[in-house]
């Protein structure tokens, strides 16, 4: 049994009279400690998968199992618990609370978990030791994203979900972030799932899942992932 296993996951959205199938029979597995990249163009259903995996949405049919637990039948409360303890989420726009300092943003997440890494430790780890007491507005995009990663990691999640983590960043900074993610994956044996439309990133992945029009097109196991430093786009 894989760490994460999706089998025939289907999701339909209804807007007015129109029913859109955002995900159709999606099936793939991700092993523990793998860095997976889900890639596809806009509207391919990759965000839907992210939502479902992140416990923010539920599927209409199919099974999703995370670390041996089927999450597709989770109720609202169980989903909150799942998000709280098992998932670390990294947003395209960082989603830091502007009114809180970097440390406080990390603490915000840590505050609600049972077991967490102290903010100072994790911030040091992401290289923000000196900027801990700065407000998001005083940080650059990359720094902000690193705070975001620190916030996600501080609660020791089972998996790290990243939604276009470099989408709002410049090339160099983006690379740095990706590096941080890859390092986290490698060093902490963290399962990292990156959702992106940028197929260049597939090179750094252990597993690449191509999606289009809500369907899994192909799942490629990459035995030799390229270090981030070597990726160009």
């Amino acid at each position, binding site marked *: 049994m894989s760490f994460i296993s999706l089998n025939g996951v289907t999701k339909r959205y209804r807007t007015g009279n129109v029913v859109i199938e955002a995900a159709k029979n999606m099936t793939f597995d991700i092993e523990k400690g793998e860095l997976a990249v889900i890639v596809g163009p806009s509207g391919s259903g990759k965000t839907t998968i992210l939502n479902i995996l992140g416990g923010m949405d539920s599927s209409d049919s199919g099974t999703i199992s995370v670390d041996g637990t089927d999450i597709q039948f989770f109720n609202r409360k169980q989903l909150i618990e799942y998000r709280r303890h098992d998932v670390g989420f990294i947003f395209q726009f960082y989603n830091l609370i502007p009114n809180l*300092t970097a440390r406080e943003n990390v603490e915000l997440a840590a505050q609600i978990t049972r077991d967490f890494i102290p903010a100072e430790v994790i911030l040091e780890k992401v290289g923000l030791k000196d900027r801990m007491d700065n407000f998001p507005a005083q940080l650059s995009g990359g720094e902000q994203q690193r705070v975001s990663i620190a916030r996600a990691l501080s609660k020791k999640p089972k998996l790290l979900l990243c939604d276009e983590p470099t989408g709002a960043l410049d090339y160099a900074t983006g690379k740095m972030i990706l590096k941080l993610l890859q390092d986290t994956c490698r060093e902490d044996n963290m399962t990292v799932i990156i959702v992106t439309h940028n197929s260049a990133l597939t090179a750094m992945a252990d597993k690449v899942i191509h999606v289009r029009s809500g369907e899994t097109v192909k799942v490629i196991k990459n035995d030799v992932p390229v270090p981030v430093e070597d990726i160009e786009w």
Partner: protein
Amino acid sequence: MKNAAFKNTLRTIWRTRARYFSILCIVALGVGFFAGIKASKPDMIRSTDIYSDSQNLMHFRLVSTWGFDEADVEKISAVPGASVKRSYFYDAIISNGSDESEAHFISYDKDSDINQLWLKDGRFPVKSTECLLDSAASAFVNGSRITVLTKDPNGTISNTDFTVVGHAYSSMYVSDFEHGNTMLGDGDIDVVVFIPKDNFIIDVYTELYVVFEDMKAENVYSNGYLAAETRRKAELEALLKETGAERYTRTVAEAENKITEAEAEIEDGEAKLREAEKELADAKSQLEEGEKQLEEGRALLEEKRLELEEGKKEYEAGEAEYNRKTIDAANASTAIIEARRQYSEGYEEYTEAALRAEKELSDAREQISVAEVNLEHGKEKLDEARETYETVRKLYDDAFHVYEELRKSYEDIKETIGMDKEKGLIKEQFDKAYEFFLSIGAKLDESKAELDANQAEYDRYCAELDDARVKYEAGVKTSEEELAKAEKKLSDAKAEIEYNEDLMINGAALLEEGRKKLDEAKKQIEEGEVQLAEGEAELAEKSAEFEEAKAKYAAGLEEYNEGVAKIEAAKAEVEDGKRQISELERPESFIYTRYDNGGYEEFGQNAERIGNIAKVFPAFFIIVAALVSITGMSRLVSEERTQIGTLKALGYSGFRIFSKYLFYCLSATFLGCILGLSIGYKLFPFVIFKAYSILYRIQVINIPFQWADAIIITSISLAVAALTVLFSCLKAVTPVPAQLMRPAAPASGKRVLFERIKFIWKRLSFFSKVTVRNAFRYKKRMIMTLIGIMGCTALMLCGFALKDSISDIVAKQFDDVMHFSAMAYADGIEREEINEIENIVRSYDKSGSVTAAIQKSYSVSAGEGKTQNVYVVAPESSDKADRIIDTKSRTTKERYTLEPGYTLLTEKLAKNLDVKIGDTVTISVSDTKKADFKVSGILENYIYHYMFVSPESYAEMSGETSGYNMLYIRYGIIDANQEEQMAAEIVNTDHVLTMMLQSVVRKMFSKMMEALNLVVLVLILSAVLLAVVVLYNLASINIAERTREIATLEVLGFNDKEVSMYIFRESIVLSIIGALLGLGLGRILAFFVINTAEIDMVMFGREIHIWSYLLAWGLTVLFSLVVNLFMNRSLKKISMVEALKSVD
């Protein structure tokens, strides 16, 4: 194109309908409150104007010391535009059977249209004994009776008993509690009574009411009215002066004429009197003569009567004699007849007797001869027997003698012989012989006795014969004698009979003669009686005539005396008249305006007060409304930043884009104005009017929609809204599209000042820190939230405070300020009688006491123009003032004492007069007399105005030295029944007119004050509404602005409660702080409102209960919680997907 843009606008409205609606509501609330409160004052004044005009309320009331006559009325009516009502009034004490009250009677004239009455219940009076009462006198029910107690020496009204047939509102009395002053009782008029005009029987009108057309055209309380009033008043003053002077001259001339006439009349009268005097003297002498004649006649008649009486008596005697004689004659005749019969009988008897006697005599003779023979025979026999006997006897005696001898012999021998046998035998022989001898002797004795008896019988016979012979002889003689006697008797009788017969015949003739005489006498007597009766009748007639004449004389005399008295009186009158003319005061007239009328000006002042409140109160609403609009619009504009950029990029001009938001805001404002104005214009003036109708009875409530004002208010609102939009859009519309397309830099986080206080900051929990920082992050919103919440709390506190201050009055006034339990109105009571009442009180409560005072209503002034109607109270002694009222200051708690020349004023009075301790106030004792007092203390008091002066000062001021008219009775708590019983006992004593229990007055006031709660309720409701709108608006903006943050938190795994708390902790903290600040603001506002809303007569409480603070604060926080709880729903609706979206 335009269509699409318009559609877009409508869709925006629909999408943000909650915000749209909140702008609409806040505008409606602000505008409605503002317009409503603002309209209240003009509405009150207009209603009064309409009411006064509809009732044709007088503009001037004219009173003159002389009253007015027709000439005066004509003069005033002749002024162009003037109409005049002739009226009478009369003040008196009335009784409804149990209580006495001071009443002001006014003539009711159904034909006049000035000062019309507005019927409340019942009907208008028809009969002159019916009356209509002013509506305030509802204690006098329809059908009850009232009686005038005051003496009416001048004859002003013809009836003293009236039946109540209805109650009416009189436009002359605007206040239910003020009916003006009177000289009677306690000086306050309690009841106004309208009685039909014909009840007034005096020949001048006591008052005139004047209405001017030009003044009617002006609005009351307006400057135009005041100007017209001043002008017309001057005109009337001149006119009255003129008419007064004319009337004086005319009256004096008339009076002098009258006096001249009267003097002539007196002379005339005197002449007539002299004549009458002479006539009377004549009549008197005639009368005396008549009396004498009458006396004589009476004596003569008496004599005649006596004579007649005598004649009558004589006649009666004669008649009796005659009757007796007649009977005698009849008797005699009977006797004669009897005598004759006897005589004949006697004669027969005599004859018979003669014969019988002869026969008897012969018989006797025969018997005698027989007896003689028998006797002869008997003699022979007897002699024979005798001889025999004598012989025998001799034999026997011899024999015996022999025997005796023998015997003797025997006896002699007997001793010798001694042989017993022989002796016995002999003896026996002898005894036998003896016995024989004895028997012979007995037989001899027997014969001898028989012989003797026969001899005796013979002797007797002889004697008898002799007797018979004598008898015979005598019988012959007697018989002869008797016969002769009888014969004589007979002849005598016969002679007598004959004599009597003669006599009888003579007597009958005499009787006849006597009868004739008697008849004659009777006739004479009858004639005499008739004459006498005639004489008496004549006398009676004469005496009646005499009496009549006498009465006539007496009447004449009396008339004469009266005439004399009249002349004297007339002379005195003339003298008096002359003096009066010389002393006559010129007529003095007084002109009263509507403003002199109780409550009229006060009502205007009250309207002014509402106007003042209107200036401050609604400002809150306006400010809050503007703030709400601004935040709402700013939010909308920033939300649509991208869209604005897009539109700009598409080539829409800045103005076109701006106009969308303009439309959005203006339409909401416009609709809000319509809603607010249509409700506000009706609701607020109505509620305020209703609250004031407790005190005033303007029967017209005119609350129209004020178009002009509405247009102005709406225009201003729209202008403000447009400015708001401009302000909000300026930032969004001016930049270049590219800039707009990019997300706006989010408000950056900052350390707040608070963090510097490390030792507190460190102690705060993580979320508290977040809350603090969040609160300060959006400063604008925080300030707005605080203002909104402060406003709500302030308004609510103001409402509660108003309620406190109003409801407190009653408890404070009756429990703390007033130191008595009941009042009794009395008429000139003295201390002795007061002790009596005190005893009654003490029988119910041992600690009870009675404090007497003189209490009268006076007009009191200080400085220029400030005049108040005040109860001036002079307690029986200065140290007893605190048995009436708590003589201490509310603010300093200082206690005051009453001293001569100084006065203690109640607080509100001091405020109204604008005086402080040490200032001087002036009491107008009368028009000419004033008394000054220095203020030595200002007392806590809430209802009415009182001014306490020492009894010495009062006596000096009024000239009255004794007779208290008010009793303040003090006792502990006794149950209601007993209290009533005690009151009844006290009222039953002399001098006590009525009694008022504080418990009853208290109830009345409580009820009155309760009505004001309506205003408070409106205030509180408005505050609540404002609170809800503001809080909702702010909370919804808070959520909308932080959607992304909330979604992120959700993604991070915050549960619902944690998310809600993260967002609302801030609102709640702000609510708590805002509400606390609001209490301070509310306090200031409340005191302002209380000060302005207060009525003249009453001082509202100045304390706000701790409960009101708690309630205002707690309710605000509660509403905040409720709104947040409500908003929680929209919080849940936020999708986590929002977190993934790009920042816009």
